[in-house]
């Protein structure tokens, strides 16, 4: 299955055409999968105070490599400030920049409002913003 698509107009977004691969992390409310090509991850489910540290711990080892790490968030049902904090903290501690794709609109808004919308280590791609 192909990941985040453009909102229309046919312009391809960075993760369009990428495919989900093997699971990297699973708990009762959240799943992280590798992607093909391999410099990406997909998040799905609920990321909150209960699994934020575990999720950050699963992603951290991937941030010592080279180039950007792309994460598709389009299947995140809910993410709280603790969850975002874990992502920000992980991004700041690693070498690679994190690029977030397909942010649900509410999550994008929250990141902007709490001051995490413009960080050098964490890029927000606006793909998917037109989706409901």
């Amino acid at each position, binding site marked *: 299955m192909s990941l985040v698509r453009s909102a229309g107009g046919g312009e391809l977004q960075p993760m369009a055409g990428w495919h989900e691969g093997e699971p990297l992390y699973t708990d009762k409310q959240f799943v992280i999968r590798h992607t093909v090509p391999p410099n990406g991850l997909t998040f799905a489910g609920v990321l*909150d105070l209960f699994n934020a540290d575990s999720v950050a711990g699963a992603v951290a080892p991937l941030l010592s490599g080279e180039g950007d790490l792309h994460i598709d968030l389009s299947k995140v049902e809910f993410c*709280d*400030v603790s969850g975002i*904090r874990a992502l*920000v*903290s992980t991004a700041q501690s690693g070498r690679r920049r994190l690029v977030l794709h397909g942010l649900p609109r*509410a999550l994008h*808004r*929250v990141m902007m409002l709490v*001051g995490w919308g413009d960080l050098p280590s964490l890029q927000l791609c606006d793909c998917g913003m037109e989706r409901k």
Partner: protein
Amino acid sequence: MSDRSPPRTGYQHDALLYAGIPDFVSRTVPFVRGGIEAGEPVLVATSAEKIDLLRADLGADAAAVVFADMAVVGANPARIIPFWQEFVDQHTAEGRSIRGIGEPIWPGRSADELVECQRHESLLNVALSPATPMWLLCPYDIDALDPAVVEEALHSHPFVTECTTQRESGAFRGVDASAAPFDAPLAPVPSGCHEFSFGPGSLSVVRDLVSASASGAGLDAARAQDLVQVAHEVAANSVRHGGGRGALRIWRDAGALICEIRDQGRIDQPLVGRERPGVAVEAPRGLWLANQVCDLVQIRCLQAGSVVRLHMRSYT
């Protein structure tokens, strides 16, 4: 008031008591002009109507003043302190003195908003350090406001200007008392309002309950999502810092949906939710977020614990 500036080296937080709109103009224009002549940045946050009158009276000088509609920037009174903080940060790093006029209280404020505005006025004594080179004037219309509101202004401001004289308030409660835990009474919860006790395993139920109530109250999808998000953040605080559990109640009042979260924790930072989160990743952000998206947030620190009420109007 006259534009004679007493020697001021630090923060001045004055109540200006005026009688009607013409008096407002004649009293604030000299203050604004005094700032312009001294080369001080001036920011005026009041009603759109008064801004128009000030612009007209100031003429070409109005270009040197920044105006803001208080009904917009201060709709939720907890957003006013960060608004002033931004103005301070913009100008005082280079050592400049600045002037402000901020009128958060007008007769159309709801009873709940009024209490939060009064808390805001008290916290202005805490939020800005005595060294901040700002002269802030807070106008109160004694013709239009309840005398009790004017009386409270004397408690929340170290200085008062009446007619043309400035004096020490004499009734100022002081900085420490301004920062004391806030326990002003809240409106009673409607009888029969359902209470849901939540714990670590039931935050998703909190979200579902708030979401259903938001839909039922006619909030649009974006505001419903905002309310679900901040209700979760407050409830998550209860789980982490407030004794591990809490109680959620939701009801409608005067066109707003209200979500209340009670727990046994203590919210002991007086400026919580009013300070823009810094770069430190660990800095708390939940109540800041609540103030950015809600029309009103009531935070109380009671003997039995903390109460947070989130108000979201359904018609905006």
